[in-house]
């Protein structure tokens, strides 16, 4: 090692870094595996579509076997889907589906149910009030907040432009 003493100290021995943050980001980006957008879109389409199809089957069953009208069947259909989602969350299956499905399992009502039930389960150890109660909307809360804000803005637009809404 001592024979090389005449040459310049190599960069690694100096403890100095010559690369900038931007240069480092370029080095790091080269090694970052990309998320496959197309694959994710197809998977989301398949899983999201399947969940909606299951919902449609459930709705049809309420209409055919329980003698409900289409409007009457919609609420129990949603409740049934939520129940299925919560059961799958409790058995530790929903997160595994989501890793494969991406947005496909996050967007439908089942995703909302999963976000609430998973938070409730996770924080059960901190008690019913400060744990379950306070944390249940930890993830779903922002959906409700921005859903309400969006609804308010739409309502304003309707009001300003004098659009009449017919309630069903």
């Amino acid at each position, binding site marked *: *090692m001592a024979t090389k003493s005449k040459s310049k100290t190599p960069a690694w021995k100096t*403890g100095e870094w010559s690369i900038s943050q931007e240069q480092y980001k370029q080095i790091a980006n080269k090694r*970052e595996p990309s998320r496959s957008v197309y694959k994710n879109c197809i998977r989301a389409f398949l899983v999201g579509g399947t969940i909606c199809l299951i919902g449609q089957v459930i709705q049809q069953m309420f209409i055919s076997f329980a003698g409900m009208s289409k409007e009457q069947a919609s609420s129990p259909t949603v409740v049934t889907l939520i129940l299925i989602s919560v059961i799958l969350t409790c058995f530790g299956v929903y997160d595994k589906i989501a890793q494969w499905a991406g947005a496909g399992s996050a967007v439908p009502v089942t995703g909302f149910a999963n976000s609430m039930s998973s938070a409730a389960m996770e924080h059960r150890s901190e008690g019913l009030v400060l744990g379950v109660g306070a944390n249940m909307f930890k993830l779903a809360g922002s959906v409700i907040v921005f859903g309400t804000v969006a609804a308010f803005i739409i309502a304003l637009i309707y009001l300003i432009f004098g659009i009449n809404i017919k309630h069903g």
Partner: protein
Amino acid sequence: MHVGRQTWLFKNKPVIISTGTVVGPDEGEGPLADTFDYVHEDLDMQEKSWEKAERKLLEQATQAAVQKSTIQENQINYFVGGDLMNQIISNTFAARKMGLPYIGVFGACSTSMESLAIASLLVDTGNAEYVMAGTCSHNCTAEKQFRYPTEYGSQKPPYAQFTVTGAGAAIVAATGDGPRVIAATIGKIMDFGLTDPFNMGAAMAPAAVDTIQAHLADLNRTPSDYDLIVTGDLASVGLPIARDLFKENGLSLEGTVFNDCGLMVFDLETQAVQAGGSGCGCSAVVTYGHILQRMQKGELKRVMIAATGALLSPLSYQQGESIPCIAHAVTLEMEG
């Protein structure tokens, strides 16, 4: 003895006389399954909360280390440990049962080597005869504190890492048989402005490189002097970046094996762990299990472990701060 910029050279060469490793089910299905002292079949470990389960891991690892040694627990002078939980509760609560003088440290996933370095320093300087160093992590406590509820269905990116459920403990002594701790380098905080908390391998790579380079420069060594150089948890994204940086800095890794504990603890082909393992337990269970066992068999003479840590908090990244990272390196040697 302080040498170079940031390295402690241990003249009396403290000995790791015993270690204990306890892991969860996923690590038990990994390629290093046979090297652990105990493998739990469930993540909850018959405890009521994830936090209690993590604490149990550490308690069992320290107990295993004591049982495998020739000393009693009350002969240990100090316990040095830390973990990922807020206020390092896993170690503090485990230390409550031990009744030993306790030094709590935090270096995120670098805590394994940080605690080993401090334990070795205490022994080398004659301030203690026996010191226990320990650390632990649990996949579910880490998910709960740093990410989302464990059962929440969100898709993890391919560069995310899987926190190891496991605990490792080592007893460092002034005399005895076993691998010796020769030197330790305390790392500097490195921050190249990366902000994605899922991409920790990329954030930590410069810290690992900086510490490994400092360790070699301070000890006047080259990588070929080592049979094995391992990083803590850079995984499949961070390790190639570290190689790129070494190349950029003109350091050749020829003549050594350069690997990462996060890649060794899981089988990336068959296990759904994305880029590989992470967490305090990751480098602890791999070092105190697999690596030390190979040293004792005579397969490895000199090893450097550079445990890496991302020192972020859930609050700091939500506020848009970048991720400060650190790495601490320790050289272990097997004599004879």
